[in-house]
């Protein structure tokens, strides 16, 4: 008999179900501070039990959006629906959301225990129940031994856990996390990311996280909204955002990417093959297999991730398309990967990444070598925005 691995990890995608009712709905939200528009006519649906990320550079409006959901700011226009109910005008202390602050905002005059109990005490729960809940939370974040400490007697990572426990103690319908792991070092951050995901699945809560760290967003989220200047550029799963960005902005913001500006040379109808596009990128002929609305002569960009570009000293059989020749200009050795910066004859730089699968200290390709870069037709994509 086969050994059980527990319940099968179900694919979670309520956003693809047209009958699903969004848990949180931002409806045509605009927020202005004086003459600065922080959030511009934004509409967004978030579903129950979703781990949703708002990702963007600082000043893109992501924190403002979250603060409006928490009730610290009121939208200038539009409304926010929580489980179908308009929550405009409801003060923060009556909203079923809890927030984990970027600065943690732990009460310095209270012990860890008291901090966690604070929210429960506001609900006038019986003493015994508060104690049980606090104990549960301490166990969840593995801080049982630190219950009587004050925040200033804890390390950064421990403080972050207290903040998390405090915001979870009331079992909020939505947990808001504002750059929750920003102050932690890389190792601890990665560990905590997985813990956050475990906690979210275990408690079955909806998490909304604000971050400028794209790796963090990719790791933890079911879906990501990439924001820029108060508007949403793309909402999709991490894989979609990475593999099929809808614009130069999203492509460039997430991960490393080569972007070559060009014009459409021929479209599917002319080529006789469905979903094929030919682009002329200033002398580089590119062939892409992609459904594309653009027509001949349109200005577009061809984008390809470095790890999808193959690097080789040998000339490929077919050099008519998807092949460029250049000199290795710089090499970034990252341990697991090496990134090669290849300078073409016209000075453009194309990056190619290669997994270091064998244990070699001296790589076969080195500075100054002349190399060919090639890629298959389904590796890159055409960006019209």
């Amino acid at each position, binding site marked *: 008999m086969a050994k059980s691995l527990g319940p099968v990890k179900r694919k979670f995608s309520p956003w693809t179900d047209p009958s699903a009712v969004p848990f949180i709905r931002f409806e045509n939200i605009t927020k202005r501070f004086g003459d600065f528009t922080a959030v511009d006519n934004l509409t967004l649906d978030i579903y129950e039990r979703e781990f949703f990320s708002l990702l963007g550079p600082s000043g893109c409006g992501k924190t403002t959006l979250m603060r409006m959901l928490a009730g610290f700011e009121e939208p200038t226009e539009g409304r926010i629906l929580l489980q179908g109910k308009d929550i405009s005008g409801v003060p*923060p202390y009556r909203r079923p959301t809890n927030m984990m*602050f970027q600065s943690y905002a732990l009460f310095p005059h209270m012990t860890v225990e008291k901090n966690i109990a604070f929210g429960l005490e506001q609900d006038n729960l019986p003493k015994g129940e508060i104690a049980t809940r606090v104990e549960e939370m301490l166990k969840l974040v593995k801080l049982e031994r630190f219950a009587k400490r004050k925040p200033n007697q804890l390390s950064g990572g421990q403080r972050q856990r207290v903040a998390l426990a405090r915001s979870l103690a009331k079992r909020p319908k939505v947990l808001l996390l504002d750059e929750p792991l920003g102050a932690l070092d890389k190792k601890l951050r990665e560990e905590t990311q997985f813990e956050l995901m475990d906690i979210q699945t275990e408690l079955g809560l909806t998490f909304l996280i604000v971050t400028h760290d794209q790796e963090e967003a990719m790791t933890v989220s079911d879906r990501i909204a990439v924001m820029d200047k108060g508007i949403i550029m793309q909402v999709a799963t991490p894989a979609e955002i990475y593999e099929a960005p809808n614009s130069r902005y999203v492509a460039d913001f997430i991960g490393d990417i080569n972007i070559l500006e060009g014009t459409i040379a021929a479209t599917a109808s002319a080529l006789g093959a469905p979903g094929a596009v030919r682009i002329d990128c200033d002398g580089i002929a590119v062939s892409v297999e992609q459904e594309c609305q653009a027509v001949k002569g349109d200005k577009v960009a061809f984008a390809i991730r470095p790890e999808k570009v193959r690097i080789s000293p040998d000339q490929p059989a077919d050099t008519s398309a998807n092949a460029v020749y250049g000199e290795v200009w710089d090499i970034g050795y990252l341990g697991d990967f090496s990134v090669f910066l290849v300078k073409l004859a016209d000075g453009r730089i194309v990056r190619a990444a290669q997994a270091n699968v064998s244990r070699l200290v001296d790589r076969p390709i080195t500075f100054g070598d002349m190399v060919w870069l090639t890629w298959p037709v389904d590796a890159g994509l055409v960006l019209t925005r």
Partner: protein
Amino acid sequence: MASVSETHPANRSNPARWLVVAVPYVWLLLFFAAPFLIIVKISLSETAIALPPYTPLFKGFGAIGEFVSQLDFDNYLFLTGDPLYIEAYLSSLRIAVISTFLLLLIGYPMALAMARAPTTLRPTLVMLVILPFWTSFLIRVYAWIGILKPDGLLTLLLQSLGLLGADDQVQIFRTDYAVFIGIVYSYLPFMVLPLYSALEKMDNTLLEAASDLGCPPWKAFWKITFPLSLPGVIAGSMICFIPITGEFVIPDLLGGADTLMIGKTLWTEFFGNRDWPLASAVAVILLVMLVVPIVIFQNQQKKVA
């Protein structure tokens, strides 16, 4: 590299370093400890009709035995025996406690409003609080006489507003009320500034966090803001309470004949009755009384630092 020179053994015995440390101690010894010991000494001697008006106690080192035998605790016994002095002490403490409470009541909202004001406005507000210091303290207390006296500005104002009949006058000058008004007015900056500095340091996201966890603002004030401002409350209260207890000028100028404060008693003993030993004893007991709040204040300061 200060840290290096500190641990360097050659520098540890450097006499120049000792000199630097010694200066403040010598200062304290000369201008605090020595005068205080002289006061203690005077308080233990007998009154004499002479200049200065007390019997000299110390006549060379050979007379230490004689010195001890001549120590005279009569003044202290007299002080504890006479209800006038005990009442003066108690009355001083009562006035200081009430004034400090009033100062907190008025100063806290002011400091809170200042700390919550826009950042650009705060320096101006602090400036306004310390502005009265540009005028002499004495002149400001005299100004209050002009306001509070029966035919003063307050009476005129109330009469012109129709709140007071043309023949009526405000009768608070030369009463305890006038003393409280004068004290609260004079000491307000000393209360507001420590409170402001404590409140201004407070992280505003703490209040957001409290609100987020279900705590309405008025409750958050008592749960978060007030406990966190306690160092400021204690500092402000002590800075006011200690000098108010020994206050002389304000009760003398604004208070009535029945306003009993130890500062006034002290003055009367020194200059009215010319009983320096008794006056010194009064001063010593006052100091002993104030040691407790001073110690509390110092401990608090240490905790903050």
